[in-house]
């Protein structure tokens, strides 16, 4: 038994054996971490030595950042193995407690081995962690050092005297000779040993630039060159020409320079000092080329019509040369400072050179501020706007003064800002101007992109307008996002700070207990838009492909489409909200608290909403139906969830809340089918042949093409009217919506048939007797009396009324004569018991006269 146990333990130990040896991942990663720790040590030592050099500090910072990342990656590499160990430990379970049965020794051994490995991994991770912490602290130290350096540089004052300037001049000559020697020796070295490599490098760089230029021209095409014939280019075309003619050549030059440096470096053509000089000069050259192109296109010296700023011809030329000279001077200062630091020149030279060059820059800015680039209404030259003049003057004077007072560092800073920040601000303002020009109504359609969108996608004008707006916003955003950090970098802010700030804004700003994350919100909006787009697509597919082919009724199709649309929108909204990182449970709490108030407030809307759902489910009418709801009658145009659009026959659109359609009786002429009946009542003269009349009417109805054959038309003799025999024709139409045309046709035909067959349609007649006629008769002249007697006492007339009381001509004459008015109108105003009263009216005035 004991032998068996020994054997078991031996096997267990053998099995667990490999675990006791170093784990492969530890063997692999430990040297990596060791090496990284050594590298960080070396960098920390270098940092101690090179505290005073900003460029070296940047280099150390970049290397440290790399090491930090490498440490993190080295630590992450342990994860799979650690997960494996944890999983195995979980399988093995906890060691038995006291009183529990003992476990097999193999298990105990394996657990111990695994724990040992895990502890070792944790130790290594701890080391990596500490080292990362150290790297990050060093990085912070570097940031602090650079900040101090920057502040020192700006605030340091040098004692100036003119002897120093003279000394500087002689030293400058010596330095130029030294520079010449260095460059010459490098050149000889290149010619002797690296000629092929440098030619290759130059060729590659040229090829890269050529690809950019040729490709760019193909894309931008004619938009790059101003058209000299066009004397009134739009602002947008001027801007796009300026943009293209600045960007493309500058990008080509920058690519050429960047690629040259890269390939020179790659082929080991560069030596340390030459490399540094090359980087600086390439940077300066690229910047100056950019500024020159920008000034040329914005000021358009030769083509005034294409000028972005409306300055006069002379000042435009002056401005162009001044800007170029400023950029060249500041660039020269920058390159020479680098030469000074590479050659380790004496301080006097550095100061003397910067003194001269910064004062030159300041003076040129002052000269720009004194220009009179505009003209007033009378055509007299006018200066810059006050604020611009003041700003330019202040910048120039501050630069010159600080140089004169010995603050050379500050003066250099100013000179550099004038050029670089000035160029950035100018570019950004062109961008902003372009954005506002693009967003103008109808402007986008005339751009290259707009034209292409129109020809390729058949985009409509409104779509293009909206796109223009989007493009405008995008350009503005890009200008702020790209230009802002660049300017901040120029002003001494550090990339890390800007990045951290941007990350903070993107990932979350804490306001109270709520975190607002810009990125989250943008993600939410994007997800919502995507989900909505998918919904619409699904909706269209379902409606157009599935339902249309399934011969589904139009009403059902509409209902399904709407339901899918609403459900999709709701789902998209929910997904968007959760993608934005907004916790829906918080929302539920708020909704719960407010639901009562919302319930009361939105009672009508909710009622309409529910009614809309009922309408969709029940479908009492569909789109295109002719319905009558109360006093409203018309065709249903659209059923949405809150209201239904009805178009009346006068083409008035009525938005009827759905609850009205649910709560009141709604008549639908075209519910199941379009069969409907029209009635044509008509009366014929007494004495007409009723049977004949009925036949004529039926024939008229049957001749109507819109009339249904079954049920066939019928005529009823509906009654004996006051002056006519009344009939009613009832005709069913296959399409009741045609009823007006059908009624018209039937009536015309009936009239024609009646006329042809001598059937009369009477008008109402009545007999009136009036006794007052006898008095009138007595007063009238004899022939009139005789005429009346011949006719008899009774007059039949069409319009019974007080015509009998109308005063005769005699009356009128009597009246008007007795009032000695030349002309007047006599009107009867009443009478009783043989007395009649008349009123004589003349020019608005009236008098009573009673006559017997």
């Amino acid at each position: 038994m004991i032998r068996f146990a020994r054997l078991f333990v031996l096997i267990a130990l053998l099995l667990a054996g490999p675990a006791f040896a170093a784990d492969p991942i530890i063997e692999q990663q430990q040297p990596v971490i060791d090496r990284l720790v050594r590298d960080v040590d070396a960098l920390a030592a270098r940092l101690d030595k090179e505290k005073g050099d900003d460029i070296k500090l940047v280099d150390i910072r970049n290397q440290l950042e790399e090491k930090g990342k490498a440490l993190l990656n080295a630590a992450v590499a342990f994860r799979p193995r650690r997960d494996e160990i944890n999983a195995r430990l979980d399988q093995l379970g906890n060691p038995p407690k006291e009183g529990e049965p003992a476990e097999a020794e193999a298990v105990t051994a394996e657990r111990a081995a695994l724990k040992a490995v895990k502890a070792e991994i944790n130790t290594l991770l701890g080391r990596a962690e500490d080292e990362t912490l150290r790297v990050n602290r060093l990085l912070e130290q570097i940031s602090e050092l650079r900040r101090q350096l920057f502040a020192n540089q700006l605030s340091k004052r040098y004692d100036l005297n003119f002897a120093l300037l003279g000394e500087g001049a002689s030293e400058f000559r010596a330095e130029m000779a030294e520079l010449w020697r260095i460059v010459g020796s490098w050149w000889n070295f290149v010619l002797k040993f690296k000629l092929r490599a440098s030619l290759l490098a130059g060729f590659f760089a040229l090829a890269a630039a050529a690809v950019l230029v040729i490709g760019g021209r193909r894309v931008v095409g004619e938009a790059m060159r101003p058209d000299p014939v066009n004397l009134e280019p739009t602002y947008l075309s001027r801007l796009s020409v300026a943009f293209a003619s600045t960007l493309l050549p500058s990008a080509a030059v920058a690519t050429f320079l960047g690629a040259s440096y890269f390939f020179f470096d790659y082929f080991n053509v560069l030596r340390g000092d030459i490399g540094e000089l090359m980087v600086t000069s390439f940077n300066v050259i690229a910047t100056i080329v950019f500024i020159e192109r920008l000034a040329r296109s914005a000021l358009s010296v030769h083509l005034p019509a294409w000028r972005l700023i409306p300055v006069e011809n002379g000042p435009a030329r002056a401005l162009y040369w001044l800007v170029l000279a400023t950029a060249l001077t500041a660039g020269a200062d920058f390159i020479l400072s680098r030469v000074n630091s590479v050659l380790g020149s004496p301080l006097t030279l550095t100061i003397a050179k910067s003194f001269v060059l910064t004062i030159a820059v300041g003076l040129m800015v002052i000269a720009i501020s004194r220009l009179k680039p505009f003209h007033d209404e009378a055509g007299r030259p006018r200066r810059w706007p006050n604020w611009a003049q003041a700003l330019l003057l202040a910048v120039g004077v501050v630069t010159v003064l600080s140089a004169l007072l010995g603050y050379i560092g500050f003066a250099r800073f100013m000179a550099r800002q004038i050029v670089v920040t000035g160029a950035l601000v100018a570019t950004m303002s062109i961008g902003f101007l372009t954005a506002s020009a693009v967003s103008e109504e109808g402007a986008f359609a005339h751009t290259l992109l707009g034209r292409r969108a129109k020809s390729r996608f058949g985009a409509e004008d409104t779509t293009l307008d909206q796109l223009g707006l989007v493009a405008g916003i995008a350009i503005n955003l890009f200008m702020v996002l790209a230009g802002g950090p660049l300017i901040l970098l120029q002003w001494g802010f550090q990339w890390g700070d800007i990045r951290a700030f941007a990350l903070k804004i993107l990932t979350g700003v804490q306001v109270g207990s709520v975190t607002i994350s810009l990125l989250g919100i943008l993600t939410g909006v994007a997800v919502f838009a995507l989900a909505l787009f998918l919904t619409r697509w699904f909706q269209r597919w379902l409606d157009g492909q599935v339902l249309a082919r399934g011969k589904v009724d139009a009403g059902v199709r509409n209902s399904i489409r709407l339901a899918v649309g609403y459900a999709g929108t709701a789902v998209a909204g929910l997904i968007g909200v959760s993608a934005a990182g907004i916790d829906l449970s918080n929302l539920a709490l708020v909704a719960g608290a407010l639901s009562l108030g919302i319930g009361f407030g939105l009672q009508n809307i909710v009622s309409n909403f529910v009614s809309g759902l009922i309408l969709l489910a029940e479908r009492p009418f569909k789109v295109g139906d002719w319905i009558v709801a109360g006093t409203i009658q018309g065709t249903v145009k659209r059923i949405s969830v809150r209201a239904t659009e009805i178009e009346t026959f006068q083409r008035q659109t009525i938005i009827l809340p759905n609850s009205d359609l649910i709560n009141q009786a709604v008549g639908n002429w075209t519910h199941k089918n379009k069969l409907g009946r029209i009635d044509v009542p008509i009366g014929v003269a007494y004495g007409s042949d009723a049977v004949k009349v009925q036949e004529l009417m039926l024939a008229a109805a049957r001749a109507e093409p819109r009339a249904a054959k079954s049920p066939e038309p019928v005529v009823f003799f509906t009654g004996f009217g006051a002056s006519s025999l009344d009939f009613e024709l009832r005709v069913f139409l296959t399409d009741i919506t045609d009823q007006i045309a059908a009624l018209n046709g039937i009536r015309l035909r009936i009239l024609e048939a009646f006329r042809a067959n001598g059937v009369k349609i009477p008008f109402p007649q009545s007999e009136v007797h009036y006794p007052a006629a006898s008095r009138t008769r007595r007063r009238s002249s004899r022939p009139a009396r005789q005429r009346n007697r011949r006719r008899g006492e009774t007059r039949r007339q069409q319009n019974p009324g007080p015509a009998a009381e109308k005063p005769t001509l005699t009356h009128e004459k009597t009246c008007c004569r007795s009032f000695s008015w030349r002309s007047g109108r006599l009107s009867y105003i009443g009478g009783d018991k043989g007395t009649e009263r008349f009123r004589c009216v003349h020019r608005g005035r009236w008098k009573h006269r009673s006559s017997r």
Partner: protein
Amino acid sequence: MKKVLLAVMALSLAAGPALAATVVNRDAEARTLIVTEGSDKSELTIGAGESVDFCPGGCFVTMPNGDREALTGGETIEISGGAAKIR
């Protein structure tokens, strides 16, 4: 044109990097992580059932059970029974 716009949006969304690690506490009690981020160590307490975003640009974390872990950002950590699982 809308389609193009939406497609661009979707692409930019898909290409957008995951900027933070998320830790979810599935336990019934609050758990505390020690997070080394930047140049300092701090404790991060996560309430029961809570989910917290942290560590936007890589960090080291010490779990409640003493395990250390390096995160590059974008991981989701689930704490249950004091032990952490990384997805």
